[in-house]
């Protein structure tokens, strides 16, 4: 049920005359259950659409401030549009006291008709493409609900099925191996065989931080921007410094998700992209049996213990 043997059938006469070296070396293991696969891809859609519509909303006031108020001239980040002496539009990105010319991407970029316009992020990074705050908000809040409900289902499922306790929570030996794991990641060395089925310490920490710090944090910061919710979230608002601080943190976590995504996709690419994609689409992940140096009296039980929900 949980273990499939690829083309391996020693009792079948058809297989008897030919060597089955390759067949003996890989085994498909049922790694990701259907609910996890579904929730993973729903999350991909919801997070992407929230990111792009979030940049649309950000563009309505392309600055970040700290505290409760927006104080002109004292922004942490500002994507400005200016005119040079020749009358050309110049995009200027201001981070604190530092300024960079970012014409074409930040501050000033081409509109849908190809004419340069003042806008924080370019139209190819926003949903919808043109400036349309009301529609951006609709996309954002719709998929915010998808994200929140999907996330609650994930946390509930991971707790009940002990995915969280078994696969994500680091064990003492995980912590002891952290130096080794960092060194392996730096050299792009990935575990083979049965060891590949187990999340390493850096994976565990990354997933825990993404779910419980980024995921919960970005939702709370979104709620802290809601004037209605602020009637009951005053302590949270005070904790983070104010509504504009919450907006800034919301923005930073959104980009932290992008940073995680880049690392996540990179690791998928270098650790066998088709195998990893098959794992997250069909649930089946191939491992190399030659490298398995443990004795497995019953492969079904062994796989059950190792299975990642």
């Amino acid at each position: 049920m949980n273990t499939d043997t690829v083309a391996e059938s020693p009792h079948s006469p058809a297989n008897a005359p030919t060597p089955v070296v390759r067949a003996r070396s890989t085994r498909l293991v049922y790694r990701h259950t259907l609910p996890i696969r579904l929730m993973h891809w729903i999350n991909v859609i919801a997070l992407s659409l929230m990111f792009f519509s979030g940049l649309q909303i950000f563009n309505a006031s392309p600055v970040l401030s700290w505290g409760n108020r927006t104080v002109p001239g004292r922004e942490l980040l500002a994507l400005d549009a200016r005119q040079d002496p020749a009358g050309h539009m110049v995009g200027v990105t201001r981070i604190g006291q530092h300024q960079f010319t970012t014409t074409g991407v930040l501050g000033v970029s081409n509109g849908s008709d190809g004419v340069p316009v003042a806008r924080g992020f370019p139209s190819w990074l926003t949903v919808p493409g043109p400036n349309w705050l009301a529609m951006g908000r609709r996309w954002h809040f719709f998929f915010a609900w998808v994200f929140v409900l999907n996330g609650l289902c994930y946390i509930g499922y991971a707790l009940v099925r002990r995915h969280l306790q078994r696969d994500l929570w680091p064990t003492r030996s995980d912590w002891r191996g952290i130096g080794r794991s960092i060194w392996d990641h730096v050299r792009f060395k990935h575990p083979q065989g049965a060891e590949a089925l187990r999340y390493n310490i850096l994976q565990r920490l990354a997933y825990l931080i993404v779910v419980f710090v980024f995921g919960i944090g970005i939702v709370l910061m979104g709620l802290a921007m809601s004037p209605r919710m602020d009637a009951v979230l005053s302590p949270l608002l005070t904790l983070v410094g104010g509504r504009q601080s919450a907006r800034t943190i919301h923005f930073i976590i959104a980009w932290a998700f992008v940073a995680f995504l880049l690392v996540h996709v990179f690791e998928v690419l270098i650790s066998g992209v088709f195998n990893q994609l098959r794992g997250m689409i069909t649930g089946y992940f191939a491992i190399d049996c030659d490298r398995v140096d443990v004795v497995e009296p019953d492969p079904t039980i062994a796989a059950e213990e190792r299975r990642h929900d």
Partner: protein
Amino acid sequence: MTDRRSFLRLAIMGAAGILVAGCDQISQSSWGPKILGKAEGLNRRVQALLSPSSAMAPEYSEADISAVFRANGTTMPTTEAYQALLANQFRDYKLQVDGLVSRPALLSIDDLKKLDTRTQITRHDCVEGWSVIGKWQGTALSAVLDHVGVDPQARFVVFHCFDEMEADTPYYESLGMEEARHPQTLLAYRLNDQALPVPNGAPLRLRIGRQLGYKQAKYLSRIELVHSFDAIADGNGGYWEDQGYEWYAGI
């Protein structure tokens, strides 16, 4: 490997292109915005559960007040009626209160002050994302509602304004009775200890603590109690609502 890589690159670019183009198609369709807009009702109901109707918006200290209270939208109404009132420094100004009420009234700013007066320092959050803090003085809307006697049939308070956003399209807004009767819902006539400046809505504007700036109508001319706002303008309960913004602006 190169085949796989170029295939993957093409797949990612294709997917991103389809996603963005698809989203724009959905945004333009007749059904897309309606489905996406379902979140508004959910936001309103869940926020009412999490943040009770009596909960108060945070109030701030004098030190928190913004040096400049940023004005957005109309900053100088051009209608004849408004210009005539402005020429006389609003001495002839009277707020009309009518609709589903037992005693329709015309109230001057002094009449309002006699009904109730209160001061609060609250934050103003624009739908665009920025915030300013100001000190407001005004009359609780609930005092005005009690003064005119609200008919039990009335479900919404509609605010009609002097300013026009486009030709023959006056600004208007509406609130449900619960938000209208909230103690922080004011008809404000003073900002930061000065008479309300024209860019901020002189002589009288709406101030609510728990919704976004566009709900807080400036340049009030008339308050109307209604059972439904379907027959007003495009029927969505406000000028910006008619442009696709949410009627519930609590987030």
